[in-house]
């Protein structure tokens, strides 16, 4: 109905509080924290009840490669935060560059993780024992969140191609905290997943 609105006359000062979109993302992340808490809690609950974990015949998880990959993912918090800082300073080109770097590294991480996931499936199955069930479900949930993050990155790269507005800055801020959350969780997930071999 904005055709009935008058042209804006009153100048708007910069707001102090976090934008609504930031709060919406923060609350969604609180909810996802509980989701992962339930998944991680299930892993430990089932592990405590088991005598052999992994069950006999299932290989122990590899340690080195997953840890390296996780470190790489956690490192992408740096370009994401750099993108946010550049956006706050109005530097559109730097914002898009940092975002593209983050996306490229995160997408590579994702591709490698999917490869490892499919490789694990040839060695043991989720349908054999609770170990496999929780292992693949926990990892799958984490990878799904990474996928969502990739979509968010791509969306903002696209949107920012037509300019930087305060609304889009709010959205980028929400995306950045999403990635910080995913990265922190990645550490917990990988430590849990690797715990039988540690």
């Amino acid at each position, binding site marked *: 109905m904005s055709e009935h609105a008058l042209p804006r006359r009153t100048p708007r000062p910069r707001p102090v509080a976090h934008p609504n979109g930031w709060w919406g993302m923060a609350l969604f992340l609180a909810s996802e924290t509980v989701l992962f808490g339930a998944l991680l809690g299930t892993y*430990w*609950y089932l*592990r*405590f*009840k*088991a*005598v052999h*974990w992994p069950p006999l015949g299932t290989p122990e998880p590899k340690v080195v490669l997953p840890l390296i990959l996780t470190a790489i993912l956690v490192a992408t918090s740096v370009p994401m935060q750099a993108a946010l800082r550049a956006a706050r300073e109005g530097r559109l080109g730097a914002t898009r560059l940092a975002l593209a770097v983050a996306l490229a590294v995160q997408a590579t991480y994702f591709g490698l993780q999917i490869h490892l996931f499919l490789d694990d499936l040839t060695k043991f199955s989720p349908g054999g024992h609770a170990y496999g069930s929780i292992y693949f479900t926990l990892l799958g949930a984490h990878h799904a969140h990474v996928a969502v993050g990739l979509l968010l990155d791509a969306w903002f790269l696209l949107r920012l191609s037509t300019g930087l507005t305060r609304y889009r800055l709010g959205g980028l801020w929400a995306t950045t905290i999403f990635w910080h959350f995913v990265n922190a969780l990645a550490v917990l997930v990988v430590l849990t997943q690797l715990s039988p071999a540690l």
Partner: protein
Amino acid sequence: MRRSELLQWFGLFGGAAAWTVQHGALFFLAAARCNPSGSRWAFGMTGWQIGITVAAAAVALAAEAAAVVTALRTRGLEHDGPPPLGRIYFFALAASAGNVLFLGAIVLEGLGAGWWSSCGAS
């Protein structure tokens, strides 16, 4: 002002956080100790229970102290008085009552878990 603000938030959340950590720890300890793999680890569950309970009670007491101090500092206002001091007074009042409850919960849970610390079913 800044100090009152920080004390207000610690008073409001400190007792709750302490009880949450103690409660979660009691659950985790019981799940670890009372299950097949945990019984192999053979750690002293009661010792951990007492330790965590004492630590949680200390934090809850500190939070209560913070809440009471803040309430006394902002005592002149009404609970619906103008912010920020009115709002701080409101939360300090509420927190002063809440931390008593959390302290009670911490002590009761710690006593109970410590006394009936059997892994057997009832």
